[in-house]
């Protein structure tokens, strides 16, 4: 086991961690605030990947790709406003989001088929050497973009008026209304922000792992594991567990590939036994 490979695996793990963070943060906050396990979240990740791919591969500009992926927020807004808002019943919302997951994945399959698509932005194809460490340029790019988006999102949730209402709403979504907050508006904004993050995360993964119809649903399993490990609705917990899951997954992918999928399950299993509410979670009544 050489130190060079270990460091490369950790860098890749951090890059994957940021993608997972963007996917899971929206999923976790939506669950914490709205008590919805949004099964369609992974499909929004897939749609973001396809939309970003279509625009970026045609224009050759990654920024346009990111903007196209962000437009998934509009789809999220429509889903929340017209499908989830009319009936705030937990079972109904599970059925609606699970149905949407199947529908969107199937539509993606009909439009793009089973073939994975990949597009690598110019200038980010190669590797960067730093001493003995060899790092893929694109994965470093993900880390830079990931840091930027994470800081903006963290600022939004912890330093703004909206973020304060979201955190108060996660604690008690009924009581925050008693002070004058229109919680329905907060639900819609949060769902749209979660969808933007999912769409951007999906597109960021295209140059690394490509895009295929079930990629989002596969990654949704990671998001489930991350929110369970970090604690449902906990922003800090989601950050820590995303990095943890990204690094564990990549270490296993480098050294024991046949364990890379199972390793996350084992981590989740251990957390559930030792701390059922998650690393930084709280018991939700």
């Amino acid at each position, binding site marked *: 086991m050489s130190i060079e490979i270990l460091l490369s695996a950790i860098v890749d793990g951090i890059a994957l961690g940021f993608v997972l963070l963007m996917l899971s943060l929206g999923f976790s906050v939506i669950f914490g605030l709205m008590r919805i396990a949004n099964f369609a979240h992974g499909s929004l990740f897939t749609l973001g990947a396809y939309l970003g791919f279509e625009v970026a591969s045609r224009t050759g500009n990654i920024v346009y790709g990111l903007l196209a992926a962000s437009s998934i927020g509009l789809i999220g807004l429509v889903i929340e406003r017209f499908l989830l808002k009319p009936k705030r019943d937990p079972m109904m919302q599970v059925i609606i989001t699970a149905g949407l997951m199947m529908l969107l994945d199937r539509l993606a399959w009909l439009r793009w088929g089973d073939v994975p698509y990949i597009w690598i932005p110019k200038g980010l194809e190669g590797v960067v050497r730093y001493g003995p460490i060899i790092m893929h340029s694109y994965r470093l790019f993900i880390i830079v973009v990931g840091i930027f988006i994470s800081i903006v999102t963290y600022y939004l949730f912890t330093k703004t008026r909206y973020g304060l209402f979201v955190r*108060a709403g996660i604690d008690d979504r*009924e009581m925050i209304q008693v002070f004058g907050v229109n919680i329905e508006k907060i639900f819609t904004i949060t769902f749209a922000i979660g969808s933007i993050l999912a769409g951007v995360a999906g597109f960021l993964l295209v140059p690394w792992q490509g895009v295929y119809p079930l990629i989002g649903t596969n990654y949704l399993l990671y998001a489930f594991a991350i929110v369970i490990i970090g604690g449902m609705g906990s922003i800090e917990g989601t950050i820590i567990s995303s990095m943890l899951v990204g690094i564990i997954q990549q270490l296993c992918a480098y050294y024991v590939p046949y364990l890379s999928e199972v390793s996350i399950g084992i981590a989740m299993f251990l957390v559930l036994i030792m701390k059922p509410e998650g690393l930084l979670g709280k018991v939700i009544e």
Partner: protein
Amino acid sequence: MLVVLVISDLKVHIGPLYILQGVSFKLRKGETFFLIGRNGAGKSTLLKTLVGFIKPSSGSIVFEGKDITYQPPYVRARLGIRYVPDNKRLFASLSVEDNLLASLLAEGLSRSKAMDRIEYVYSLFPDLKRLRKLKASQLSGGQQQMLNLARAIASPSLKLLLADEPVEGLSPIFVSKILEAFSKLVEEGVTMVIVETMPVIMKKLSGRCAILNAGRIVFEGSTEDLLKNEIIMKTYFGLA
């Protein structure tokens, strides 16, 4: 004096159970109104209906001339109605100061105005200033209740306070602090509906009161009348 709250024939049913079976009363500006009754009489349900958590089956709630019977809680809050729940329901993961800040920003105040109001609240409850960085979940029961009340009375637009057993289970020190705050609200002309099980609060604040029994008002009068009535004192407070 000006009538601010008119409740007419309010009926609430939850599933097959009729909790409120036609409650009516009027409140004038600055009046303190106590609700008394055994467990399950419908006191808390009445407050939750007034705040907007429970939709009534029939009847009406009119506040300052506006029919708010089916308005959501946030619309009522913007009219100056605040609620102090009996089980505290603080924003547990937020600090004491953020609990106060969230409640003030929610009504649309700017951050600087909200901070001014928080300083005012700290002058009423100096202990909260000392504890401001702590998470609400780290406070003792009495401190949590202080914050629960402070969060509601921090509002500069407070007109109607609905408090559900605000001093239940508190030590005498905390009871006297909370009573002081209530007295100040009375001076400021805030109308209050207080669900209470302790006669000491009624002695101190005086006003009107009603006894709820099985979802109906069975007695309405002044607190003095109630405190003099031996049968009521024995039946509802275990005191003769």
